[in-house]
């Protein structure tokens, strides 16, 4: 600590006032500092003119629209390229234990909270019986409901939330639960499909 303020250096820029021992020099404003200040001001003015005053630059909404259109076209292209989901292909997955295991892991992570750990039904319906509200018991139907959900009834649409391949695995896993008769199963909902 050094509060011996009387030893302030003698400097031609030292001003001749003093406050409680504090002296002030009067160095000129640093050039780079002033330049920075002016650049930010000029940038600010140009930016404002470009985006607001003149309307030349896009608004946020216009930019969003453009970005969304681009994403939409990516999605359309992906949908066109995607292989058709067929009953046979899905049935083959049901036989593939690796696929079913993967489907099960995803089911536990994303679906069990609503459909129960064993598919017995909880917030959502029982998935182990032959009664369905929104599908017809086929694998393709099952796949479709998982992809598109029943959003207004609280069953989320999982497209985009779960990768396409995994959705197929999940569908296969659920199919494998058919007739497993877990404890505490929720009562039948919907129509019986044999």
């Amino acid at each position: 600590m050094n509060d011996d303020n009387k030893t302030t250096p003698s400097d031609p820029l030292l001003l001749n006032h003093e406050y409680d021992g504090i002296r002030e020099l009067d160095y000129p404003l640093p050039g780079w500092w002033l330049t920075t200040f002016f650049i930010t001001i000029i940038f600010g003015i140009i930016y404002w003119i470009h985006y607001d005053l003149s309307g030349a630059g896009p608004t946020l909404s216009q930019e969003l629209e453009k970005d969304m259109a681009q994403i939409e076209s990516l999605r359309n292209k992906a949908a066109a390229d995607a292989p058709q989901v067929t009953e046979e292909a899905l049935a083959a997955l049901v036989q593939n234990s690796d696929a079913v295991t993967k489907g099960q892991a995803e089911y536990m992570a994303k679906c069990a909270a609503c459909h129960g750990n064993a598919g017995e039904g909880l917030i959502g319906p029982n998935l182990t019986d032959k009664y369905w509200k929104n599908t017809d018991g086929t694998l393709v139907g099952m796949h479709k409901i998982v992809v598109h959900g029943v959003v207004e009834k609280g069953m989320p649409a999982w497209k985009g939330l779960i990768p396409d391949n995994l959705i197929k695995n999940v569908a296969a896993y659920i199919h494998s639960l058919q007739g497993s008769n877990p404890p505490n199963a929720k009562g039948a909902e919907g129509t019986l499909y044999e």
Partner: protein
Amino acid sequence: MSEATGGPLLNETYDDKIVKAFTLATLVFGLVAFIVGLLAALQLAYWPFNFNLEWLTFGRIRPLHTNAAIFAFAGNAIFAGIYHSSQRLLKTRMFNDTLSWAHFWGWQAIILAAAISLPLGFSQSKEYAELEWPIDIAITVVWVIFAVNFFGTLIRRREKHMYVAIWFYIATIITVAVLHIFNSLEVPVGMMQSYPVWAGIQDALVQWWYGHNAVAFFLTTPFLGLMYYYVPKASGRPIYSYRLSIIHFWALVFIYIWAGPHHLLNTALPDWAQTLGMVFSLMLWAPSWGGMINGLLTLRGAWHLLRTDPIVKFLITAVTFYGMSTFEGPLLSIKSVSSLAHYTDWIIGHVHGGALGWNGFLTFGMLYFLIPKLWNTKLYSMKLATTHFWIGLTGILLYYISMMASGLTQGLMWQAINDKGQLIYPDFVQTVTEIVPLYWVRAAGGLLFIAGFLIMLYNVYMTIQSAPAEEKAEAVTAPVHPKDGRHTGDGGHRKLEGMVITFSILSFLAIAVGSVIEIYPTLSLHKYIDKNAMVEPWTPLEQAGRDIYVKEGCYVCHSQMIRKLPFDVIRFGEASTIEESIYNRPFQWGSKRTGPDLARVGGKYPHLWHLRHMNNPRDLVEASLMPRYPWLEKKKIDFYSLRRKFSVMQSLGVPYGDETVANADKIAEEEAITLAAELTKEIQAAGGSVPENLERTQITALIAYLQALGQKGKK
């Protein structure tokens, strides 16, 4: 060297008792603020650190932490420094001792009221303005007492000119008063509840005009004033550039006030306001660095002190952090940078670089300088102060780096879209799990910062122990009337420095321009509203649920503002509109997404999902770090107050019919019965047991609100 004209000499002692009181309060509340901060940090790393107690949930603890850090710790530090330095810079005792003590005790009482009311959930849920209306009034009164005392001191000063530190104090006192009053215009609807007069976008703009300038005029300008006094005092060196002081002071005061909308970039706020917020933030860079340059270069020719003197170490490191934060701030205000950083921990890191580095270290440096002087002794141990410095600095760096990493990680994960046009990390919780390890690192950083502070407390304790028994008040002898600046031939700014009232009016005008230009147009909202997109106001039960959401402070983790950014829209649904929050008092756009955005969560899940989720989020989302809220299934809905609330809402312009207002409570009761019946059906189908009195418990109102979010605009 001061002009010794002006009549007889007067000898007077300084009031250092009040400085001591504020100093001790700073230390006490510093400890509280830091520990509560650590608790909040731990809760994000491991949620059970809320001990499953309502009063300790994150939504209540975070406001307690921010208010304690800003108003209790930094506030008391500012007052200590201002009372100490002003008397000396103005060569006079404070204007009135009674006012000084009223200020001191009034402020401590406010802190106490905050410490009790925030954990109890009395909150307006507007950041750094959470305190409810009776406390808001108390703050106004105490601030006026402070102002009268300070300006009284200025008037009776015995130093003709005001030193730059005093300019900053003046700007602080005036601006904080204006900010606090306008952001706290609210209508009480209960002993400890109120609705702001502003709604939706207006409330958002006024809040962030306030919120940003709380940083500017509570955590920046007063601390710059302290810097201008304590850096030259502690180093014995002259201030580098008087000219720079003038330019950067006025530029800072004029420009800062415009920058608020940078907290609302890419949102529904009209584009022009966002642009102003962004470009003025960029323009702030140089004026801020003006202060840093003046602080750092004051050490010219005495750099060795940085090695040898812990006080100088603290002060100069603080100024360096100020420079870093004020570079980072403008950077974060660029719309595209904000799209990455907003709602993430990067902002939290940014804030703490400023709060711990700038405010914290400047305060520590000041106190190490001040305490031996006040108690008329020597600091017990310079070595311990140096240890404090290094431990504290390590803590800050850990904190800052971990939060920066966390923010970048999460921000980039939110944005990532693959070539199929899908989110790569669609699962929000995955982006949370990823950063939890960094939350532990942050907590470790906080712990180190506290460890350093404990060393300081010990050092201070030992210092005070060694103080001589009898107190010796420092005195000053100065002429009675040296202040008549108009007749001494000063010109330009120098002349202004002798004119308190003119100076204060100019400062006021400097902050008024930006305030009026940004806020006024937003008040005439009709220009921005699309009549075809208008939404229905909340029903009585939904409003009751909303009040619970506000009380629990869910906004600390959840935003309700889907930005005009593709990855926000893909994840959460259509961008939020102005119309959707037009009746929201307070607005709840939020500033941090620890959990997902909730603007459109309505209808996403069945009622039962919410019931179970609020009871224990981990039952549904294993990795969730959201607190449990089981007490919502026990506590009763306050139906009774709804009529009063609705009549206030109606008088504030919400289009409720007289019928609705007169029967608000009954309508809510009926809504609750209907919702409870639906919920009961779902529970029974799932084979669960139905909680008692579902139609009267708060969870039902909250679910009604959650299910209505984003549904109001749908025809």
